[in-house]
């Protein structure tokens, strides 16, 4: 499982790194970035789903690795 942020939709609400810091970090503008290449470590699938749910812009998506 992989996660990604669509930068054309992301507007810096910051919910992804606030609620699921296991998978996201904030940048200097307060926008979210995926950790590493976005691969979801085993056991963190629920966090990935939560991040999708939490984004007001629907900018976070899950893809199959």
């Amino acid at each position, binding site marked *: 499982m992989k996660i990604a942020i669509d930068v054309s939709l992301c*507007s810096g*609400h910051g919910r992804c790194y606030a609620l699921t810091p296991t998978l996201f970090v904030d940048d200097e503008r307060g926008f979210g970035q995926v950790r590493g290449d976005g691969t979801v470590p085993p056991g963190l699938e629920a966090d990935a789903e939560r991040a999708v*749910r939490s984004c007001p812009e629907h900018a976070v998506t899950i893809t199959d690795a």
Partner: protein
Amino acid sequence: MSQQVFRPEDAPMALDRTAGWAHFRNAGEVVQGEGAWFLTSADAVQYAHHHPELFSSARAFDMLGSPLPLIPLATDPPAHVRYRRVLDPMLAPRVINAMEDELRRQISELIDAFATSGSCDIMTDVAKLYPTQVFLTLFGMPLSDRDQFIRWVTTLNEGASLVGSEPNPEVLQAAGELFAYLQGFVAAKRADPGEDMLSRVLALSGDDEWTDEEVLGLCFLFTLAGLDTVTASIGFVMLHLARDAELRRRVVTDPSLVGPVIEEVLRLELPAPLNPRFTMEDVEVCGQRIPAGTIVQLSVGAANRDPLRFAHPDEIDLDQADRGHLSFGGGIHRCLGSHLARRELRLVVEEFHKRIPDYEMAPGAEPRVTWPAGTLHLQSLPLVFTPAAAR
């Protein structure tokens, strides 16, 4: 087509926003009122958020007749991009982290002032004072100017209403005094810069340099959009906790629920109820055509209660608190102060409940909001509680 014109002013908001926003939702997701259209579903509001080239912010705020450009709220790309590139990092969470100890100290001091007395009014003792102090701190202005600042902003905000009207002399005088104060302050900061946000904006040079008019526009927007909205949200969060003993107990027992409670109250209770845009051409939203040159009000309070997005749209349900809402807007105009506002709310709830874990509304109190209004906020929220031990 619609049989009667939608009248937002008829929404019964005063005591219960559930009834108030239902008035919007029930009218339809794209509905024509007198002088403006209203978007009430989450899909419709987000369509406007994501198409700033069709839904202009610069043109939408012309009707306010502000003497200054409200930066960056009332601007469109490409100017908007230039402003946000500079401003976003100044209000990013990592910057606010560095301020947190000082902000926590300030709210603790405000609460200590009444914690041993057994009663308070959340609006006058906390909600009006704290956001103004935070703004003054952020901009490097003296906290001793707090009460004067509050008087100006209160007069200005009370003068603004949903329907455009001639400003009264009191409003004009307050606007003039606030403007002169800010102008003097900008001049002083140019001469003697500090570490604050205002000094950092003034320090920009070359292509990034801001004119005095732009800097003053930013200050004006912060005072008009950044103070009353947080004041309102502090009131609403405490209202819901005061009314619901079970919710209060859960938050006191498990502080990790502070964030979820705040998110759910933010979703249900909109300080800035309507966000205007101006259509640059004929647009089609959710199958409905809106003509060019129209004011469109994004009715976020209704969109946040969209049953397609939320299982329990009109209730506080902590299990749905991690679902994205639109209280801070969206798209390129996502509230610049959202991270700071959330932090202020968290600090208020944490420090209040450390000292005063159990409280209730004063007997006979019936907290209400004024509607129509530019900002929805409680006028008063009197609480009674067992006095805390003196600290």
